[in-house]
Every structure is written in C-alpha cells, then in structure tokens.
C-alpha cells in the first residue's frame, strides 16, 4: 500500500521534532550516549504518568534482504517472539500481560523495531528480555513452518485481499528500477513461501548486535536509572562484527514516464497517483528536503492546501486530492500527488487539474502567506506530538536508526523556518518533472448495471 505507507512516513516525519521553543517546556532534557558495545541510547523523560515506552531499533530492514530472499527481515521479526534458551516462547507475552503492558514489533524498508509499553518498575525486566533475544534466539523447524504460514496469511490480508494493496506493490516495483525499495517489505508471495530457518538465522547473526541498534526509552524514568539498567542487561551483550557501510543499489537516471494500471471489479471510484523519486533528508543538498516537505504541505496537506482549495472546493473536479513526501527514508524515496474524481468528472479531469496546479506552482511560485501557514502547521504538530510518549519514541528511534543525528532533530525547526518561497518553487521545478513520473491508475472494471 504505497499510499498509506508514504503518508504514514510523511506524517511520522511531520511529527518528527521535539521541543519547539514557543514556550520553554518544563520537560526534562533528552539524554543520549553510546555504550561500550556500540549500542546507542536515548532517554526522553516524560513524568506525567507512570508509563515507560521501551524500544530497540535495529538498523536493518527489508531493503537489506538478499536478492531472492524478500520478506526475510520481516519473517525474522516474527521469529523473534519464538523464544531463547533463557526465555521460552510465550514467556515474554505472559510477563507483559501480567504487567498489563503492551508489546509489538514492526519492520519497514529501513528498520526493524521491538517495543513494550510497561510500568516503570518493569523496565529492567524488559531490558533483560530484549538483550537476551538480541543474540540468544533459538528456533526449531516446526516453529518456523507454522510462522511462515502466519506470514503468508498476513500478506494475503494486507495485500492480496484488496486492489489498493496490489496496485501499491506494483507501483513501487515500477518506481524503483534498481533500489530494493521496489520490493515489498512483507516479500513477494513466491519468495515468502520459501522463507526458512537458515536464511532467517543468517540474517539474524549478521545484523542483530548492539553496535547495529538504538535503544530508546521514553516516559517516567530518569537517564541514570536507564544507564544502570542498560549496563546490567545490554551491557553484557558483546559487540558484533563491524558491518560494512550501508550502501544499497542506487537508482540510475530515470528517463521515462511509466504507467501502472489495475482494473478490478471491487473498485467503485477510480483514482490515480503520480510519483517521483526525490532526495531525502539524509542525502539532500541543504534545505532541499525541508523545501520538499513544505511543498507537499502546500500542495496537498489538508483543507488549506492548493489541491483541496482549487480542485475540491472551487472547481469541484475532485472528491479528494493530496500530496505526500517520504523524506525520512534512508535512501531517496517518493514524492507523490494523488486524486479521485467527483461526480461526473473523469480521472483525466482530475489528472489535468493536478498537473495544472503543479505547473502553476512551478511557474508562479508560492506566497509568503501560504509558506508561513505551512510552517506554523509543522511547528504546531511538533508540540502536539509531545503529548504522546510513544510518538516521541518513534520520532527519535526512526531518525537515529536511519542515519540522522540528535543535532539534526534539534535543528530541524530552524531549518524549516529558514526555507524561502523561492526554494519551494525550485525543488518543485527540479524534481517534479512529468516526463519521468510514474503514474498509477486504480480503475473500476466495466460491469453491467444491476
């Protein structure tokens, strides 16, 4: 589902920064350090309620799967719940349940993360479990087989069972011509069916080590307690072999416009999306990623956006239209615009209207007023993000696990404030070239009226 994923990524980035200095926050300072074995630690104190969010982020995701082994990173994430010599399968479930806590895990193209939300007195116990399974996983073939069936059902549920899921997968595979972002995180079905113990363990032994991970603790805890508990648990895990630099196959120069179309009986309303691979925060020239974020907000970020005002409200051509930018990815990722027609209007009408707005912005630029409003909305969302310790943990974890630094996080609001209207216009002109866009269409199948 490229739409959802892209939007989710963008959102998590919009929410991505702490402590905007509107008012001096009475919040304790964020602490961070690196342990002797290479584990990076970040503590985000939030004393409002006796709750702690404990997360371990591994700097590895599905884009690091070997060719032909798609889905392996995600499969391993599932297997990480199958127990160690010290803690058999289900023990973590039971302990977290007894505490009234929650736990989960997720895999993206770039990271794999494990988290628990628990009362503060259980933090040490959770660290013991997490440190233990960092290198102590024990698997048997029977367990692996049943879990592979679970993942196959997960794939069917998320992707194969709905046309949006299938089209999103094909769009991504078309957008990326060389980078593994083109391969779905959950894996292609025919490769998921071949996932096995050996490959999962090889991946685990290669990538799961303290020096390839970030520990994030947010909530009702102080940094010194975290330090003591972390030394007693993670501190006992030996440093792993040094990993080579994280360099994935990169994209060649793109020269063509491409189209992906899915026609399906279940589709009632057609829709389209237009996509480009653009620079991300980690690799962009200074100011470009910030400008792309603001461009996305001004074009299609809500009811004050140009798409909404011009195409939905004023002309009534579209039932909905928007934009998204996944600037937080480790490697260059997608900028997307999308829309669906209203009433008697056609998909071609919406496409033309979206293109007109893009051309107008590239030709005439944006106003100071709309840039200021967009910046304000970013700043506001950062303050709102501080209300949820889980979002703060996600912000710091996702950024630190994808090559960004605490300094990047701190400086981001000022960098956003520094963006000029000319910069926004310039990135639009530079990157949103229609002659190399990848367009997806989701179309209703012709069918007889009932």
């Amino acid at each position: 589902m490229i739409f959802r994923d892209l939007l989710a990524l963008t959102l998590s980035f919009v929410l991505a920064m702490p402590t905007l200095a509107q008012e001096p926050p009475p919040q304790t300072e964020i602490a961070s350090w690196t342990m002797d074995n290479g584990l990076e630690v970040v503590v985000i104190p939030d004393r409002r309620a006796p709750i702690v969010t404990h997360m371990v982020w591994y700097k590895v995701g599905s884009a690091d799967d070997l060719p032909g082994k798609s889905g392996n990173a995600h499969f391993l994430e599932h297997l990480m719940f199958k127990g160690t010599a010290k803690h058999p399968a289900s023990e973590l479930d039971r302990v977290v349940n007894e505490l009234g806590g929650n736990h989960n895990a997720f895999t993206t193209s770039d990271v794999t993360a494990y988290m628990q939300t628990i009362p503060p007195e259980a933090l040490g116990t959770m660290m013991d479990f997490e440190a233990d399974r960092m290198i102590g996983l024990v698997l048997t073939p029977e367990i692996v087989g049943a879990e592979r069936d679970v993942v196959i059902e997960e794939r069917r549920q998320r992707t194969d069972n709905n046309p949006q899921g299938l089209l999103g997968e094909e769009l991504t595979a078309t957008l990326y011509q060389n980078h593994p972002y083109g391969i779905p995180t959950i894996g292609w079905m025919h490769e998921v069916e071949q996932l096995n113990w050996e490959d999962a363990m090889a991946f685990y032994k290669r990538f799961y080590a303290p020096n390839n991970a970030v520990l994030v603790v947010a909530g009702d805890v102080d940094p010194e307690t975290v330090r003591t508990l972390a030394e007693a648990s993670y501190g006992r895990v030996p440093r792993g072999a040094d990993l080579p630099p994280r360099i994935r196959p990169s994209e060649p120069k793109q020269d063509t416009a491409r189209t992906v179309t899915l026609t399906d009986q279940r589709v009632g309303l057609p829709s389209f999306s237009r996509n480009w691979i653009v620079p991300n925060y980690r690799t962009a020239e200074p100011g470009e990623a910030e400008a792309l974020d603001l461009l996305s907000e001004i074009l299609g970020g809500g009811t004050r956006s140009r798409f909404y005002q011009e195409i939905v409200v004023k002309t009534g051509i579209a039932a909905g239209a928007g934009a998204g930018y996944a600037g937080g990815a480790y490697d260059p990722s997608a900028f997307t615009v999308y829309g669906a027609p209203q009433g008697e209007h056609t998909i071609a009408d919406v496409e033309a209207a979206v293109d007109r707005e893009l051309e107008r912005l590239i030709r005439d630029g944006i106003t100071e007023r709309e840039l200021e409003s967009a910046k304000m909305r970013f700043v506001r969302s950062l303050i709102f993000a501080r209300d949820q310790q889980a979002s703060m943990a996600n912000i710091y974890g996702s950024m630190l696990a994808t090559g960004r630094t605490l300094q990047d996080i701190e400086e981001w609001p000022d960098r956003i404030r520094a963006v000029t209207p000319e910069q926004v216009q310039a990135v639009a002109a530079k990157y949103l070239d229609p002659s190399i866009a990848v367009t997806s269409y989701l179309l209703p199948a012709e069918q007889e009226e009932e």
Partner: protein
Amino acid sequence: MTIVRAFRSLLVTFAVLLGTAPAFAVVEFQEITSPGGVDAWLVEDYSVPIITIRFAFEGGATQDPIGKEGLSDLITALFDEGAGDLDSEAFQIRLDDAGAEMAFASDLDAVYGSMRLLADQRDEALGLLKLAIQQPRFDQNPIDRMRAQLVSGLRAAARNPQTAAQKMWAQAIYGDHPYARPREGTPESLAAVTAEDLRAFHRAVFARERLHVGIVGAINAEDAERALDDLFGALPEKPDLQPVPDAALNLGQDLAVEYPLPQTSIYMAFPGMERTDPQFFAAYLMTHILGGDSLLSRLNQEVREKRGLSYGVGANLLNLKHADALVIGTSTNAERAGETLGVIKDVVARMAAEGPTPEELALAKKYLIGSYALNELSSSSAIANTIVGLQLRGLGADYINERSAMLQAVEMEDVRAAAAQLLGTKPTTMLLGPKAEPTP
C-alpha cells in the same frame, strides 16, 4: 440512560492509582460544574502547553429521519464549513491561524466533537469552537460539496464485497431496529437532506441534558468552567430525541457472501452483556481469555500459533446503547476456511462447557487491571476520550478507582456462568470469501 450527578456543586477529585504501586497518583479527575450548570470532568496537566477538549451529545445516526440516512454523518463534516458571520473559507483560515485542530464525528448513538489547541491561543481557538457548536451556518455550497464527497465515498466502497457483507450482517442481526439502517446513508438518502433538516437535527441533538464533556491539559478549573458556559451555556436545556428501543439480536443464522478472494473472512455474533450488568466483568474477563488482544488468547493459540491459519483472530464485547454482543472475527486461508471455523467452534464450545483455567483467569485479571492506565490514560487525547466514554456509559469518575476491585472480585463461577450464558447459544455466522457455504 440518564446520568445522575450527585455532586453538582462540589468539586470532587478522584486520584487514579496507576499500576500497582500506590506511590503513583498522577491523573486526577476533577468533577466541575460551571456557574451556568454545565458539568464536565477536568484533568489539569501543564507538562505540555496544550489543551484537549472532547464532548458528546447523545443521539447519533439513530436520530437520522427515515429516508435521510447519513444526515448525522454529513452534519459532522459541516462544523468547520462556516459559523456565525464567518463563511467556510474565513472560518478555516481563522482556525488554522489559531493553531487549533477541530474534529467532529458521529456513531450510532452520539455526535462527538473535539478540539486540540495551544494554550497561548486558547481564547481565539475556543471562540471558534463556540461558533461551530452554537451557530453553524449550513450554507448550501459546503452542504453540496461535502455531500458529494460522501457520495463519492459510498461509490468507492459500493463494489467492495465487504460493503455487501456489512449490509447483510447489520440487516440480519438487527432486523427492523434503527441499527440496521445504513449509518452512512445512500446516495438517495443523502440527496434528500436539506439545510433545514440539518438545522433541525442540530436543534434537537445539541442540548445540555445529554451532553458529556472532558477537558485535559493546561487549564485550571475556574477557566475551564468559564469555557464550559461559553461553549455550551446558550444551548437549549433538553434535547428532542426520537426514542430508540433496545434491539433484540437475531442470532443463530448462517450467512454467506460469495466472492473470489484469497482469504475468507469469518464473523460470529453471540449474545452480549450489558455494561451495567453485575456480571459484566465476568463476561469481559472471559472474552479476553477467549480472544483478547494477545497471542496468548485461546483463539490465537489454536488458530494462529499452533496451525498458522490466520494472521490473527479476536473476540470482543460490543456495547452499544441499545444492543450488546460478543463478536468473533478473523480472516483465514480460503482453502482452509472450513478447518478454521471448526477450530473456532471447538474453542468456543470448550470455553462454554468448562470456562477458563484458574491460571488464565488470574493472568486476565492482571492484564485488564494493569493495562487500563496504559491504554486509556496515556495522553491528553486518550484521557479526554476515556472521560467521555465513561460518561456515555453512565459510569462515574469513581469507576476508575473501583474498576480494579470489581475485576479482582470476579469469581471463577461467575466466569463459567458468563461463558455458558454467552457462548452456549448458536451464533449468527457469516463467511465472506470464495465458495462460502453456511455450515450446518
């Protein structure tokens, strides 16, 4: 049900003990009443400079006039489309400049509103919320635009087999009760809604007697009380609601929607337990053990962990204002749907006959007691949601403290009785997928 408030003029504070350590008493619920007589619960918290307010007026989709289904959905799209002397565009620009996020929504039983705002722009933001609540304009242009968007949404979903399944499910279970009507309406019923219908709905539902309010964040009681009068004081005292009978669920049916999909979805509805029933917590514990949100649940163990038949299977107690049910749902490998249904039925039958083990009951108690704060009180929005939810269900602020003891007091006999009572009945079962056939 009406909410009886015994402490109208008192300021009562309930300190919620989170977790098991009595040293923590963090979230304090204050019951406040404005000079004009509007009640709310307030949680003061100054750690982040924001304020969250959430409220509900009883009377949701069940109040849509016959033939105008979807009205309550449409009206919630119009509160930021012009109010007072501000038209749609002027209102939205002011709201954006005020740094506030405003949202309205409805379900079968209530209309909800909320605002999240920055404390240093409080007066401007609350002024706009007041306009939206008291003087929505319902101008024709926004009505037509939002209606067209809703109709597009209906069109988008119309050919999805899930939509047909939901419709069949609601009609089969609820029969001629208002809950069986399409909550989001149809293109025809939405077309029939006029500005006058919207004004009439607003007049009938937006009243103080069935209003529930939660306020959380950087605001003190005095200011919160003033805000309550400002926002709600001018509304009529009594709503004018159409009476809605309690629904008798039609259980024991076997339904199928056939569609060539790679998975078969399975839904089952059993009798439920009223929220105010003394045996509610027994049923709640039993449902959690059966299919709660944990890989340790009996259903997840048998269906997912041991057999790999599904990514997940869950059981939930559903408590609407006029209907209660225990619902089980999953999606499974279509070729093994029969096997999955068989496993679920076995697990259900065993629970109905024997109940849980003492270990399972003890673990469920620990989880449901401990998780409350983590799930319900973890942010300002979560707390405001919880406040309004408790009030809608007729529960007092003291409930949060009593809840643990009530869960703790449940005996194994109660849980066994609840299991037999709810699961001993033939459910209504629906299969959505290829070659779905009702099982005998």
